[in-house]
Each structure stands twice: as C-alpha cells, then as structure tokens.
C-alpha cells in the first residue's frame, strides 16, 4: 500500500492513527467517569495499567502469559500438522473422504470448546486439555482448506506432470503441495485466532495456570482490571501469532500478484 500512496499522504495517515489511539485512551480514561459508570464495570485505562504492573510484581503474570502462549503455540503447530496431513490424504483419496466425511462433518459441527470439560476429566489440571482443545479447533479450517485446494487442482496439470513420467511422490511435491499453499495460509490465519480461543476455554474450565486462570481468578475477586489485563494479553498473543503467519505467508507466496496477497 505504501508503494502506491505518496509519502506525504502516508505520513498524514500515520499521524491520524496516533491521534485516534490517544483519543481512544483518553475516552477510556475519562468517559466512563463522566457517564457515571463505576470503576468495577469499566476500570479506567490508568487503573488497568497499574493493575498490570501490580500483577507483574505479585501474581507471576509473566509466568501465566508464557504458559498460555506456549500452549497456544503447541496446539497451533500440532493442529496445523494434523489438519494438513488429513487434508492431503482426504484430498488425494476420494474413497477415504467418502467414508470419513460423515464423522468429519459431525466433529466439525460439534462445538469444539464443549470438549474442554471432557479433556479435563481425562487429563486433569495439566497442559494437555488446553492443547487438545486448541488442536481440535485449529484442525478444521486447515484441513478443509487443504482438502479444497487439492480438489481444485486442474487435472490436466497432473496429467502434464505424469506425461513427463512423474511418480506419485513427484506429483505431490511438485504440483499438489505447492498448489495447496495459498488456501493453506488462508486456513492458518483463521487457525491463529482460533488457537487462542481453544487454550483460553481449556484454562477457564480447569487449572491454576495461564491467562484463562487469571480471568476466572479476577472474576471471582471482583477485580475487573485484572480481567481487562488478561483479555489484552490474550489478544496480544493472538496478534503476534497472526503477524508471524502473515510474515511467513508473504515469504512463501511471494509469487502471487501483489493485489492477491494484500488481504490482511
């Protein structure tokens, strides 16, 4: 986008963004007070900030945030690998897809977060229930996109490769795998946001670590500012993961025309 716009215009837009942020923070700080909204409903920005500093010092905030982030990462990576493998297998084998599709559909329709209590029963207050919910919730968008991509490949391209005496493995690595990359990354973007949801639900249901635990703790203590801090940090984890995906996507899909890539 920056390439198209003249520099002066970009600068003006930057100034506009900063001003908007200041306006937002100011409104957060003073507007609730002016409207008579008590601090336990919407704590002002300064209160949330001081709570953040307090939690850093007293509540092992860094530890909880790191636990959540690592669970998100583990769930995301495992779910993506599983989704990709199953997506390719089903995409290449219509028989397997026909036989498995009712189960996959059922599992896709079932609200994945509802599995959280079940996983807690199975694995107790460990990291596993959280990671499992994330895996389950990340799996589908990745699998569906990879499956769709493999299906959408022009059969003539595969025939062309085969006419060059390509083996099945060569068709996969030279045609099917790279052809699936654009939809795969679209799936990853969705999955990045879902992974955070999966882990938080797991933490809400049971356990004594992670930002989800701090959410329930803050709720129980009537500490609204603590809830705000946890929500903001969870959002930050999601943003970082999403940003990393977009960065890698830009590297991998560099061959796409610029306008096709700039969807973020």
């Amino acid at each position, binding site marked *: 986008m920056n390439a198209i716009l003249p520099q002066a215009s970009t600068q003006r837009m930057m100034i506009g963004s900063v001003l908007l942020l200041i306006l937002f923070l100011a409104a957060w700080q003073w507007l609730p007070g002016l409207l008579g909204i008590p601090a336990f409903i919407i704590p002002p920005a300064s209160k949330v900030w001081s709570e953040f500093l307090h939690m850093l010092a007293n509540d092992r905030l860094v530890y909880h945030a790191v636990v959540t982030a690592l669970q998100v990462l583990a769930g995301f990576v495992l779910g993506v690998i599983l989704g990709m493998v199953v997506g390719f297998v089903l995409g290449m084998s219509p028989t397997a897809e026909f036989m498995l599709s009712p189960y996959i559909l059922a599992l896709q329709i079932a609200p994945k977060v509802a599995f959280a209590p079940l996983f807690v029963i199975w694995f107790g207050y460990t990291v596993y229930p959280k990671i499992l919910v994330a895996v389950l919730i990340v799996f589908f968008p990745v699998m569906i996109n990879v499956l769709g991509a493999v299906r959408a490949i*022009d059969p*003539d*391209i595969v*025939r*062309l*490769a*085969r*006419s*060059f*005496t*390509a083996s099945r493995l*060569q068709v996969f690595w*030279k*045609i099917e795998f*790279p*052809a699936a*990359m654009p939809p795969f990354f679209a799936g990853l973007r969705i999955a990045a946001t879902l992974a955070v949801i999966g882990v938080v639900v797991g933490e809400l249901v049971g356990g004594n670590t992670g930002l989800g635990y701090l959410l329930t703790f803050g709720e129980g203590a009537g500490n609204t500012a603590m809830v705000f801090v946890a929500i903001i940090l969870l959002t930050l984890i999601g943003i970082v993961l999403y940003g990393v995906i977009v960065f890698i996507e830009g590297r991998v*899909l560099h*061959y*796409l*025309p610029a306008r096709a890539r700039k969807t973020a």
Partner: protein
Amino acid sequence: MTRIRLEFHNVTKRFPARKRIDPPVVAVQDVSFTVADGEVVSIIGPSGCGKSTLLNMGSGLDPASVGEVFVDGELVTRPNEHVAFMLQKDLLLPWRTIRENVELGLEIQGRPTQDRHRIAEELLVKCRLQDFIHHYPHQLSGGMRQRAAMARTLAVDPAVLLMDEPFSALDAQTKMVLQQDLGRTLAETQKTALFITHDLAEAIALSDRVLVMSQRPGTIIEEIRVDIPGRDNPMERRKSPKVGPYVSALMELLHIDQAVA
C-alpha cells in the same frame, strides 16, 4: 525409407457409458496411421470426434481398448520420455518462474541442475522469452505464456510432440505469430509432431499431411497431403493460392456447408 516415429495400429477406444445398461461409448473406431520422422501431421474433425482421445492414447495416459500405439517402435503402455504434449491451456505453474516452468519435465526426469538451466535458457531464447526468464507466469501475456509452454514441451527433447489445439485460446494475430514460431521451431529441430486443431487454415499452414476424422465414433475418412512448399514458414504458406482449394476440400469433407444450410 524414413523411420516411423509414431504409429497407431487399428486403435479403438471405448468409454463406459454413464448408465450401466447402456452400451459403452465408442470414441475412436479402428484408427490406423503413421507419422514419419520429422513429419508434422494434423488431425481435424468435428468436435467430439475423439481427436483428443487419440492424443491421450499417444501420450500413454489413457490406454487403447483395442489395438496398439507405437512410438519409435516401442509399444506405448504408460507415459514415457519419448512423448510430450501441449494443450490449449498453458498449464504453467504460478509458483514457478518461467525458467523453472520450462525445467519441469527435465526436473521430473532427474536431469542435473546445470543441464536444466542450459537447456531452458537456450529454448527461452529461441522462443523470444529471454527477457522473462525470472518472471512469473502472471506477469506474461497469453501468447508469451503459450510460448513458454512450447519451450517446456521441447525441453524434454521428445521424439514426438503431441499438441491439442495449442493456439485456440489466443487472439487471431497472436495465433499467427505463434504458428510461425512453431513452424520454424519444428523445422529447425526436425521434430515429429501430431497436431490437433479445428482451424482448417492452421492445419494446412503447419502440416505435411492432414487427417480428417468423421463424427463419433471417430475414424479417419481422408488423408490429404499438403503440397505447398515452405512448411517452416507458415506465414508465407498461408498466402499461397493453393490454400483456398485445400480449405474447400476440407470443408466439403467435414460437411460444414450442410451444417449452415
């Protein structure tokens, strides 16, 4: 006697019908012809007459129901390195640069990197794409993309080129330029080619012989030897006064006048 490069021997192709009780669909019925070394033969016929089926059997992607196909005297049973095909769609892979696309066949056949680069770059110069070696397909025009597809087909140095309406998606002028490129390249490399088209003038301009096929079940009803000099220069050949009579003869064979009436 010149060597036979491609031979269809009493070839019939049946496809199973949609409903199981129906008889199978006969796409091609008892087709026999040969293409000699360095010869360019076109096949024309009404749509759905099994032209593309012939090509698929020639490439070994789709076996014949009856009869045999031989390339260089070898029975074709599966895709092999002697044959390469080119379609109406360029089928360039969007994630590969033009050079990498041209190298696809060589890569599959396990040729060393240096050879691949050398062959691809030579062909891209021949196809006047030397300035686009590192571009991606979406950055090229339709005609350029089809020239890149031609280079990819030639890169594996096939004994026989099978082409299925390779220029039918291009505009009239680009088409003539590419026909000229193909005519020259085929003559320079002395390649053997089987060329499927529905463009009568194209068939006459590019080939030594034209085979005319009937409606389904497709069979060869006529063979016409194109007796106009300069097969390496289709542009000039088109201007020959002999083209008109050939086109009329083909129109008659294909009953095009009756379709109008």
